[in-house]
């Protein structure tokens, strides 16, 4: 044994070589992710920007007519962008309260035995492939929506009937899909709230529910906001499930209109597109990418702020 070696395993003289090799491998692996992100960003910008200038930035981003294959094509994606924003916002509006309440139930209210049933169910929900959500949407949600649509718009001559494939269906599917993300992260945030906060609140005479809403939830605020932001990211990036239930026509994002999201716009037309049409689809990808980057930056800022407040 050479004195240089500090390994708990015996030295065969190859130790420093192994150490170096391992270091190199780890570094390469570490940079792999960076390389992937950098190249994707570069690729999206290179392939997404030409169309912006060919068609005109304003014409693409604020045009309302999407006719990519017409004799005089028109590439307005305003309705598509609005649909993604409104659809995601509504999904958050529905999904977050349910998700946070479920997290409160799991972390604060539920007896151990019930937690052991609900939590695996939530985890399973996260594991279900998105296409399954879409299929369920087509089989259950769409016919149901069509019945409501027929009732609401009975006798209407201006409404275009969609057979239940509309914004609401897509929003409901999205709301369901973000639940696991919101629940899991909110629950860990709630569990991380120090026990003495609860005790203090209870000692002051607050009821259990008052304690949850006035002491625990505010204390877990940054974690819950993280949950919301991650949920938004999941909702805005989802394609498969909503492409099955949203109808995929480019329309104003009204509740009973058939709508197209940024993701489904790319998915549905990529296969047959060519030339400028394809380039515009990449531009849509770039817009989506920009949205997701924005969400991630917001998330990072929030996390940093959270850490700072903890440090104080």
């Amino acid at each position, binding site marked *: 044994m050479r004195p240089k070696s500090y390994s708990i*395993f015996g030295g065969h003289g190859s130790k420093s070589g192994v150490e170096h090799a391992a270091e190199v491998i780890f570094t390469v692996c570490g940079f792999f992710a960076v390389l992937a992100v950098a190249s994707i960003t570069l690729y999206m910008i290179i392939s997404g920007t030409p169309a912006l200038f060919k068609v005109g930035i304003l014409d693409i981003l604020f045009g309302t007519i*999407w*006719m*990519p*294959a*017409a*004799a005089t094509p028109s590439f307005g994606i305003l309705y598509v962008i609005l649909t993604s924003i409104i659809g995601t916002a509504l999904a958050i509006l529905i999904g977050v309260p349910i998700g946070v309440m479920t997290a409160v139930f799991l972390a604060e209210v539920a007896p151990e035995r019930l937690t052991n049933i609900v939590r695996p169910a939530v985890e399973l929900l996260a594991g279900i492939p998105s296409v399954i959500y879409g299929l369920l949407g*087509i*089989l259950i949600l*769409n*016919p149901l929506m*069509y019945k409501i649509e*027929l009732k609401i*718009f009975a006798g209407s*001559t201006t409404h*275009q*009937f*969609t*057979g*239940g*494939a509309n914004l609401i269906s897509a929003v409901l599917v999205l709301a369901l899909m973000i639940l696991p993300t919101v629940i899991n992260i909110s629950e860990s945030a709630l569990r991380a709230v120090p026990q003495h906060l609860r005790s203090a609140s209870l000692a002051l005479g607050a009821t259990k529910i008052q304690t949850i809403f006035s002491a625990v939830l505010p204390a877990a605020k940054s974690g819950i906001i993280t949950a919301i932001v991650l949920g938004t990211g999941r909702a805005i990036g989802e394609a498969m499930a909503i*492409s*099955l239930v949203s*109808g*995929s*026509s*480019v329309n104003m994002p009204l509740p009973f209109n*058939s709508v*197209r999201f940024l993701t489904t716009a790319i*998915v*549905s*037309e990529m*296969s*047959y*597109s*060519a030339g400028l*049409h394809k380039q515009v689809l990449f531009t849509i990808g770039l817009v989506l990418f920009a949205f997701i980057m924005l969400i991630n930056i917001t998330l990072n800022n929030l996390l940093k702020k959270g850490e700072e407040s903890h440090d104080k």
Partner: protein
Amino acid sequence: MKKNYIKVLALAGMAILTMGTLAGCGSKNAETQAPDTKTEAGTTSGTTANETTAKEDTATNLKGSISMVGSTSMEKFATALSEVFMEKYPSVTVQAEFVGSGAGIEAVTNGSADIGNSSRNLKDEEKAKGVAENIVAIDGIAVVSDPANTVDNLTKDQLINIYNGTTTNWKELGGADQPIVVIGREAGSGTRTAFEELLKLEDACKYSNELDSTGAVMAKAASTPGSIGYVSLDVLDDTVKTMKLESVEPTPENIKAGSYFLSRPFVMATKGEISEQSDLVKALFDYIYSDEGKDLVKAVGLIPAN
């Protein structure tokens, strides 16, 4: 123990890598060998021509390139055809450009292309310039609805009115009081292009659902009361109601007879008859009209012409 584990892991990794390289080399060898044997066979058959049949002889001796210009609707068919043909005759290249039917016929008329692809019949003035209309396949589109629909026949005008949004309820067509759910394909789809062209509804259709596959249209039409959609003929089944158009069923027989209006010929126009063409072009048409060619035509969802 732990160190052994790492060693085993490293060894396994090495083994996998080695196998991968070996497998890679193996397939590469096979690939490079294959053309060699083929050329050998070619030269031997060329020199000892009486031993081989005439057909094989021409097959191996064909060399050169064929240029096709024309219809974008025929892109799927033309691409498939050129790929299969080039695989069969490795020293032949088929170049296909997709610029539109009119431009394709123009190119074959002035001799800049061997074949002009056209997804419509030739006009009389085009034929007058000596261009021969060789119909290689027929594209047919079926109109489907949900199985419970009581309407089973539509006229061309009725179909146009449904798709441009003028007719919105089945009761206007003698059916139940039920709104029409108009289903179509996404922009850029060949079926959509053909459908809109045939009904002269280019970019005038008001779809409530734009689905991105034939299967999705079938599923949606089958499950939505009051739906109407269009699909290529080969996918029709009992889950949907197939509409008669002008009282004609969409069968290959009716389409060939020309009585079903939602169909169009795929023409590969040549300057002069096929018999006047080069051996290459003749071989291409021989292939299209062979059984193998017919299977290819069916495989891309079309009806063989003969």
